[in-house]
């Protein structure tokens, strides 16, 4: 739609004198021309859909995904407070969950309302070895969501996830206090399970990291045209008798 609008505005700005002339001009500025003009005028190189740029972005992703994985695991090691929503009490109980520094064990336990995040050694707490974790489920697939058969609000469903462990009979049920915490933990648990992260936070953080990375990579190409297709590669040189020998220096 944007392109059609542009076809019309560009044609009008050249002040055609009749409808016929107008139609001809609009047709002349066909779709691909507009796209090319837009690319050179408005979009910066890192924003275009030029194949070499897209390819470079793909090559940059794995390293950035690794950063996100590290961030997730660090946050899990820092630990998070969760609420146990209880219909009986007036106040929800608090509990915490935290990954051990070596990433092998999840520690969790109850906390008093006004306590700071307890250290790994403190308190009576229980553990789940990461190796025993079978799966992570979310939303309506969670045991604690299935209990109240459709009585759960969408809000709660969007914050609920569970870890099933030890032959899938046991589950540790979570209700995150924010969608951010939900994304953090579901991503982090996916990493521990060797699965790909899938949260919307992960996708938006990847975009932020990727957009900066590509800009920096293309800094020295400012005002330099990037060919859409690879230039031809000449025949290999007839000899390798170079002027300079660096073999001594390299040793």
């Amino acid at each position, binding site marked *: 739609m944007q392109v059609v609008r542009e076809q019309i505005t560009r044609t009008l700005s050249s002040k055609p004198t009749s409808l016929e002339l107008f139609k001809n001009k609009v047709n002349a500025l066909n779709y691909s021309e507009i796209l090319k003009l837009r690319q050179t005028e408005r979009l910066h190189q890192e924003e275009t859909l030029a194949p070499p740029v897209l390819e470079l972005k793909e090559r940059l992703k794995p390293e950035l995904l690794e950063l996100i994985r590290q961030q997730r695991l660090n946050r899990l090691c820092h630990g998070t407070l969760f609420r146990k929503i209880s219909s009986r009490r007036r106040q929800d109980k608090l509990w915490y969950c935290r990954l051990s520094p070596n990433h092998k064990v999840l520690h969790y336990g109850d906390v008093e309302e006004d306590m700071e995040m307890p250290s790994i050694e403190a308190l009576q707490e229980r553990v789940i070895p990461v190796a025993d974790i079978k799966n992570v489920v979310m939303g309506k697939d969670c045991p604690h969501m299935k209990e109240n058969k459709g009585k759960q609000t969408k809000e709660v469903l969007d914050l609920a996830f569970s870890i099933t462990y030890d032959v899938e009979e046991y589950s540790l049920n979570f209700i995150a206090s924010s969608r951010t915490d939900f994304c953090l933990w579901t991503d982090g648990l996916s990493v521990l399970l060797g699965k790909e992260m899938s949260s919307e936070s992960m996708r938006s953080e990847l975009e932020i990291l990727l957009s*900066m990375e590509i800009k920096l990579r293309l800094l020295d190409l400012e005002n330099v045209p990037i060919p859409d297709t690879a230039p031809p590669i000449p025949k290999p040189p*007839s*000899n390798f*008798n170079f002027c300079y020998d660096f073999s001594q220096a390299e040793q």
Partner: protein
Amino acid sequence: MWTPTEDEKIGVVVCSFRGSVSLGLTLELGETVHILEKCEGWYRGFSTKKPSIKGIFPAGYVHLKKAVVTNRGQYETVVPLEDPIITEVTSTLQEWSVLWKQLYVKHKVDLFYKLRHVMNELIDLRRQLLSGHLTQDQVREVKRHITVRLDWGNE
């Protein structure tokens, strides 16, 4: 035969080269190379990221930039001919990028977003300077803005 290059000293890679030739140098889009010598449509040189690795690559795969050469020969130093402030902004951005990613991993959210904002502003200001469309006054203004941001970052 291979001859040392006179004016072709610095290039920016416009197309990734997989190095699929004997003694070929693998190059990524956007990398900067120093060119030492040439022969039959090929250059021999190295990437500024990995100066110890020398190799050959097609001349058509790099866009040449003007350079200042000192101590011509095997151990020459080559510097791009550009406004020093551009060089400074470019290298500062690359340094800050490393820090910025660390801020992300360590979850220093506030600083992460602030630095990102400043980096984006610097990228934009640098772009404006390179556009060649600015008047003398505008150039002075832009440089002033750049300096302010560089100073902020160095805190």
